[in-house]
């Protein structure tokens, strides 16, 4: 997890195509410039970044289900809940489900845990927008490989 670069996911541990379900893990870094401001002397993972963790986890599944034909842009967060404080060093797990694949959009649900205790959840809406250029798809594929995403299952 590199907060400054919005790289929230360390790796994927489960992707179930049939169930439209994905699971990721990450460890909150001990040091980050984010914690210099949030907060001085009391480093606390910003709640919006937990939302981002859920959005990225589920977004990768949306990407894959759409055959990596467009970028799932987060459009709406409903019923977003941050249930407890998260600190540097915490090991987190996230789960995302795609509940509907529409035309040019997708609906998902996501949850996060720390050692089995729920820390956050939300319902997410994505617009699927065209990639900015042909190279972008390749960039995503290379990134996916670094995250242990099972690309072969989604190759079309």
């Amino acid at each position, binding site marked *: 997890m590199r907060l400054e670069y919005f790289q929230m996911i360390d790796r994927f541990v489960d992707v179930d195509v049939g169930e439209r379900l994905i699971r990721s893990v990450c460890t909150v870094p001990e040091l980050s410039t984010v914690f210099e401001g949030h907060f001085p002397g009391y480093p606390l993972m910003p709640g919006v970044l937990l939302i981002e963790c859920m959005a990225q986890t589920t977004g990768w599944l949306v990407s894959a289900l759409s055959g990596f034909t467009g970028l799932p842009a987060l*459009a709406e967060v409903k019923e977003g809940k941050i249930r407890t404080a998260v600190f540097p060093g915490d090991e987190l797990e996230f789960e995302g489900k795609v509940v*509907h694949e*529409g*035309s040019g959009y997708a609906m998902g649900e996501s949850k996060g845990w720390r050692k089995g205790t729920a820390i956050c959840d939300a319902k997410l*809406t994505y617009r699927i927008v065209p990639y900015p250029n042909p190279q972008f798809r390749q960039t995503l594929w290379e990134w996916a490989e670094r995250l242990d995403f099972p690309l072969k299952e989604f190759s079309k």
Partner: protein
Amino acid sequence: MSTTFDKVAEIIAETCDIPRENIKPESHAINDLEIDSLDFLDIAFAIDKAFGIKLPLEQWTQEVNDGKATTDQYFVLKNLSDRIDELIAAKGA
């Protein structure tokens, strides 16, 4: 009035908090009811679920952008209801 329109009107009223009596067959979702594109995604989701279809929003948007169709054809509610009926019929064919 078609059952499809009534169902669509109920969905819009509930999703966008618009009084049901203000939603008429000749209402344009965007121009008259002022539903924006994000709220329309929620409506599309509810319609997809309620009717077991997939509104082809990408195709419709492309047709409008290309000048091959007008927004009236897809977003005036009586026309939208007709499109839904066509999709239901195509699914059953």
